[in-house]
């Protein structure tokens, strides 16, 4: 997809933000698995998830689906579009 090659704005920047938020959420989730009663961690989790959902919605509207649930086009099946995550151009 051409949108992925637009380095400074658009899809690459949005994907970078989603990756960072997802990683922070993953770390917080693992911490909460070990400390389920930690109020600070839970608050942090909700803050991150809220921001993450917004970023993903924006990405899926502009660039393409992140999961199989994110196909926003009604005229075209986007999911199979390259590049795929392990390709040089996708990163």
């Amino acid at each position, binding site marked *: 997809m051409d949108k992925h090659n637009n380095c400074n704005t658009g899809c690459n920047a949005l994907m970078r933000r989603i990756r960072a938020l997802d*990683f922070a959420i993953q770390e917080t989730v693992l*911490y909460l698995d070990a*400390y389920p*009663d930690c*109020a*600070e*961690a839970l608050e942090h989790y909700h803050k991150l998830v809220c921001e993450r959902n917004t970023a993903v919605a924006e990405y899926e509207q502009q660039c393409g689906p992140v999961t199989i649930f994110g196909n926003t086009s009604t005229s075209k099946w986007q999911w199979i579009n390259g590049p795929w995550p392990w390709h040089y151009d996708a990163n």
Partner: protein
Amino acid sequence: MYIDNNDVRTPRERVGGELLRQAREGDSCGCEHRNRTGVTRSGTSVEDHVARSLVNGLDTRHSMPTYADTDTEHSDEHSDCGCDGDNTSYGGNRENRMTRDNEHSGCGCGNERMTRDSEHSGCGCGNERMTRDSERSGCGCGNERMTRGSERSGCGCGNERMTRGSERSGCGCGNERMIRNSWRSGYGRSDYRMTRTDTYEHGGCGCGTDNGSWGLHEHPLAIVYSPQQVWRNVYDPEEGMEHGTIFAELDLPFYGNDNMRGGGCRG
């Protein structure tokens, strides 16, 4: 008793003064007995006590309650003299004299001289001399001398001297001396000085502290010990990506080929 008609003191003052003179000249403070070791009450002065006793026609020498070594109760309203049986006079050797500024003095605090500024003094705090600035001093905080600037001092915080600038100090925060005044907290590294953000109200404790688990000193055999991690300020998401973790205390980079000594090709 000699009474000087030119003496303008009240009878109470006269009697008290006379008794004080007697006490200073070698008598005990009026108790004739050993140190009291039990609970005391607020003291009016010895003079007042003796004066009252005189007025009531009691023998001054025995007007003070007698205290056995193990007597821990005082029926008398006024606290004891606090003088040991070595004929220490009231105004003389103050080695073991106790000074009490307030009503409730703690007992069972060992044989050390105690100075108390606050109302609630802790007992069972070992044999160290304690200085307390705040109202609620913690007990069971080991044998270290503690200085507390804040109201809630933590107990069970190991043996390090603690300085706290914030209200809620963390407990179970290991043995590092903690200084809190900036945003970045760290934990669990021997060379890592901990700092806390001003806006981060809940410093350190509550998340990851043991609730019913064993402390390090109580840990049984044959069970590996893993310290608990405390939730502190975490990296921003992007910064976390760079470090591979959002927790500064888990950020332990690889520094090179040190581990190859003895196994590698270098001499």
